[in-house]
């Protein structure tokens, strides 16, 4: 079981209110991602759940039990750190065994669990090495192994993939998702990378300055962002946000249109602009369009390729049913 509830949780560092009172419920077995720009309080929130950070006010419940005053080790949570936080002078085996050793579990059980974890994480050949002799991805797997053997009520991941290179990150992302499917344990995952959030989460929590902007499934956030911040943060490339006269035509203070919901033409369309840089990804092309008179630079995503050179004139037409409208308070107009 791993149902976690935050009630009016608040954190103040000195005079700065990092997290204003906040409510959130995480259901058993859910994969929840906290996402937001750096400094938004997502790591602090995770550390508060883990017990590494005290609450200024409010309460945390795990499985309907108030754990606000319970020490970290007694909360039944396991955490994977960004720096892996492996014990450098211990072998992989001892690293994984450490939490069990602290819990006083007998050696036979320890070894059985270590072997099972090592097998599922492809670490069997590395059990007698020290962390210094492992690659980044292997270290990450050891850190996960150390978490698994505790059989926690929930896993907490604090930006676990930020120290890996891009290719490895995609691989580890899949491994963590596989792990979640296999264990069906609650996982809370903190990242600033919205791609990770979108691909991994059952539920995304978008945070800004300690405030939850929106909670929902990846596609909910994509299709119906509650406000302009979520609209701009979720989705890659970013949504084009247009203010002023063009927005008023649609009866809104500002409108947003995602790059993939723009149609491109070389001869006619709603908006006219000049082609800037084009990023060719093979399957898609991102074109940066300047001088539209609507915003600084508009991004368009098209399938395949288009014969447009730097400086060419280009016409863009939004798919009208895909326009997001926001009022003066930046909230979505349904």
């Amino acid at each position: 079981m791993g149902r976690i509830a935050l009630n009016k949780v608040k954190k103040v560092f000195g005079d700065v209110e990092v997290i204003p009172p906040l409510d959130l419920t995480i259901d058993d077995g859910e994969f929840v991602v906290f996402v937001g720009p750096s400094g938004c309080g997502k790591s602090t929130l995770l550390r508060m759940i883990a017990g590494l950070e005290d609450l200024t006010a409010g309460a945390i419940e795990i499985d309907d039990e108030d754990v606000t005053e319970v020490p970290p080790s007694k909360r039944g949570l396991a955490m994977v750190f960004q720096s892996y936080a492996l014990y450098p002078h211990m072998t992989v085996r001892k690293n994984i065994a450490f939490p069990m050793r602290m819990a006083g579990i007998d050696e036979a059980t320890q070894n059985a669990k270590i072997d099972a974890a090592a097998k599922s994480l492809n670490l069997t050949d590395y059990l007698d090495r020290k962390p210094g002799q492992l690659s980044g991805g292997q270290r990450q797997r050891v850190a996960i192994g150390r978490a698994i053997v505790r059989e926690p009520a929930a896993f907490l991941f604090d930006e676990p993939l930020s120290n890996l290179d891009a290719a490895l990150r995609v691989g580890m992302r899949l491994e963590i998702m596989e792990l979640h499917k296999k264990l069906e344990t609650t996982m809370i995952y903190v990242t600033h990378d919205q791609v990770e959030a979108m691909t991994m989460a059952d539920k995304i929590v978008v945070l800004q300055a300690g405030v939850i902007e929106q909670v929902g499934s990846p596609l909910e956030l994509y299709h119906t962002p509650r406000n302009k911040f979520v609209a701009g943060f979720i989705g890659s490339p970013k949504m084009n946000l247009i203010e002023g006269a063009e927005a008023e035509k649609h009866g809104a203070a500002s409108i947003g249109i995602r790059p993939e919901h723009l149609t491109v033409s070389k001869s006619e369309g709603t908006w006219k602009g000049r082609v800037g840089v084009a990023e060719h990804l093979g399957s898609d092309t991102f074109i940066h369009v300047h001088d539209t008179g609507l915003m600084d630079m508009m991004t368009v995503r098209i399938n395949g390729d288009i014969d447009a050179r730097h400086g060419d004139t280009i016409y863009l037409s939004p798919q009208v049913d895909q326009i997001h409208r926001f009022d003066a308070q930046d909230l979505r107009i349904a």
Partner: protein
Amino acid sequence: MANRTIPRLLQTPAVLLLLVWMLVPLGMTLFFSFIRYVLNNLRRPEWTSPSIENWRGFGNYKFVWNQDGFWLAIQNSLLIVCSILFLTVILGVLIAVLVNRSFPGRGIVRVLLISPFFVMPAVNAVLWINMILDPVLGLQGIAVGGINEVIAGLRNAPLIGGFFSLWPELNPISFRATQTSAYAVIMMVTWQWTPFAVLIFMTSLQSEDQQQKEAAILDGAGRWSQFRFLTLPHLGRPIAIVVMIQAIFHLSLYAEIEIVSRGNGNKNLPYFIGELANNNIGAASATGIFAVILANIVAIFLLRMVGKTLME
């Protein structure tokens, strides 16, 4: 090849200087250790100048080897060095861990902690033996006298008086005595060198990874387990360095021994050599060679130890 010759040529003066610096004294010591050479001998005036004519072979070595003083000096050297190492490392780790936490006035405490290291060895010895350890005038004498007075007072008290009347009167310890003077040296040098260990351990503690500690907290490790499984292994390398540097320094202790008891009961190898060198330079040189051998044996062990921790 030419691009190697020039650097070597340029290095030559420095290398030569170092070689001369080391080899000449060593060579002279070796030479003196194989001849009869005394500073003052009325019956055999020819021994008073170093000359190959006075060749004695291994005679000086045999003479030293068969002296009880020599073996006592080696024992004492090892006792003093090992005790100081043991105490400074333990005290150093404890104090460093304590001072590493944040508390008001930490800056001042740290400066005060380092200050014993700036006291001259001879001054250190004079302060300790006269002001602290002296059985009459030192702190020790005053403290023991005070305790005795308190106990004497309690003897007449009702109820508990009977219990205290069984207590013997405490006697202050004379640290200039044969049996205790080595401990006085160990105490004062430990006092002086603990700051050095604290300093080194403190810098090392500040580089300790905080996320590892947090991971350990989540893994259920208490304060002691964190210290035992994270901090102590982290300190392995600085401990090895402290042990090595201190071993080198303390094998050649002299001032403290001279001041505490003029070598009474706590002669170490340098002091023994010093005494021989008052007259018998040949025997002193032979002992010096023994000291070099001893230092090398210690150095090999230490280098192995340090090398092992550095390899990890």
